[in-house]
């Protein structure tokens, strides 16, 4: 036996010994090697792989060192030479040839079965991701109600709505509607004077301007400035205080006696509710302050959640 092989065996033995020692040391002291290896198959696989690598490396290196020591050049030289440097006519090593053929087989598999031409697209992957996410969202949040719905509404609000309505939903000094109250007096006044058509019911249901608003109590005469002033404050105060008669004479038919709205006639003006908020999110709105864009990218559950959140904070 060559001395090199003896050295190889010694090196391998030292590396194994060191590895086993380290393993036991880091494994908690009183654990045996077999305990550590049997605990998790990944550990056993990694150790086996490393051991194989060590053995193969050491003995392959020894093989080639031996070859350098004893081999002499053999074989036919090619006809061509390059500045005196020649080349042997060696045939391709079998391993290389096999690998080359396997590559071709793999290529066939890749093109036809694995990832066929045009089978992948970035948009396709996006669509799949979105479908998976939506299904997960649907399954997870389908039945949530109450506090969890309000929580979801708050997170959507903070992502989408706070940019205009502010973190506290106070409308940032009149830059957007203050959502802590259903409506303020100036807005009521603006709507009475100018009319409105905001699809708050989900479809067009225009409210006339002041020329189309009659007070039944004063013989169906058009609403007066003083009456507008009164009823605006009445509505803004949450349907309390002076102005109840004007409201009863003019607004009740569409908005209901308690201001809670009438189906297919007028929206709820006494407080926020989920239907109202959902309709505003779906269709957008134009009011005294300006235009609110529609937020169609929210899904139905998210709209409902925002409705629940706003209903909750405006209590």
């Amino acid at each position, binding site marked *: 036996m060559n001395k090199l092989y003896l050295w190889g065996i010694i090196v391998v033995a030292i590396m194994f010994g060191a590895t086993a020692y380290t393993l036991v040391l880091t494994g908690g002291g009183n654990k045996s090697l077999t305990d550590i290896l049997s605990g998790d198959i990944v550990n056993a696989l990694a150790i086996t792989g490393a051991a194989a690598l060590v053995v193969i490396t050491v003995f392959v290196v020894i093989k080639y060192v031996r070859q350098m020591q004893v081999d002499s050049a053999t074989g036919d030289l090619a006809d061509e030479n390059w500045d005196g440097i020649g080349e042997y006519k060696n045939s391709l090593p079998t391993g290389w040839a096999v690998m080359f053929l396997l590559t071709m087989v793999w290529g066939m598999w890749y093109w036809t079965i694995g990832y066929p031409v045009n089978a992948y697209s970035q948009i396709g992957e996006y669509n799949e991701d979105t479908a998976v996410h939506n299904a997960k969202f649907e399954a997870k949040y389908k039945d949530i109600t109450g506090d969890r719905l309000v929580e979801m509404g708050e997170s959507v609000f903070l992502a989408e709505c706070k*940019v205009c309505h502010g973190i506290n939903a106070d409308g940032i000094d009149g830059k957007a509607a203050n959502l802590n109250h259903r409506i303020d007096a100036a807005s009521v006044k603006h709507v009475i004077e100018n009319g409105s058509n905001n699809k708050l019911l989900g479809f067009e249901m225009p409210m006339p301007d002041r020329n189309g608003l009659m007070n039944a109590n004063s013989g169906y005469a058009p609403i007066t400035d003083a009456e507008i002033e009164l009823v605006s404050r009445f509505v803004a105060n949450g349907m309390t205080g002076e102005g109840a008669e004007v409201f009863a004479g003019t607004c009740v038919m569409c908005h209901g006696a308690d201001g809670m709205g009438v189906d297919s006639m007028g929206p709820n003006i006494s407080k926020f509710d989920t239907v109202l908020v959902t309709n505003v999110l779906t269709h957008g709105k134009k009011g005294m302050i300006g*235009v609110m864009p529609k937020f169609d990218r929210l899904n139905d559950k998210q709209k409902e959640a925002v409705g629940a959140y706003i209903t909750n904070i405006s209590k």
Partner: protein
Amino acid sequence: MFHWLEKHPFFFAVGVFIAIAFAGLIEILPNFAQASRPVIGTAPYSTLELAGRHVYIKNSCNACHSQLVRPFKSETDRYGHYSLSGEYAYDRPFLWGSKRTGPDLMRVGNYRTTDWHENHMKDPHSVVPGSIMPAYKWLFTNKADIDTVYAEQLTVAQHFSVPYNQDVPMRDGSVKNVKMAQSLSEAHEIALEEAKAVAVDMKDQDVKDAVSRGEIPEIVALIAYMNSLK
């Protein structure tokens, strides 16, 4: 022949170039030509919108804001539908941007409004506490450059066949006809008409006065452009 090529590196390089260029031509060009056609719903920029685009470029908005929504759920949740090549058909140059210091603006017209932009440009902190965007107060006094817009419209209409004064299809099935002036003075009139429609929704009295005097502050043009990004 290959031995000959190996001995003549110049001709070898030419051969390599031809082979790769040919592959590029047949692989890239047809697909590219198809994808870069305007998609339905993409209309040329109107006079005032184009003036706003110039303001956008002049102030290097594209240094901090991208206009490119990538097809990831996290992006489309935040910015809307992912961008299509054809949507940039009338962008010369395109304003994809390369870094999002601020948010993407590809579809900002869908979720921000005239009055919000006005507040935001005057004092970003008033609507976005902690924002690192600087205020752009000079936009409220500088006047938009309509002459350059008219020159650009003439050029792109004549040389790149941008369909001004023609019906282009919109997503809802309707058609949109973007007017381009036939003379410089008409261009100013068209821009002023558009500016009035924007100024109605604005609060700043100086801007409103300027528009009613027949002037167009840059902010009005920029907001028209922002609102057109959908």
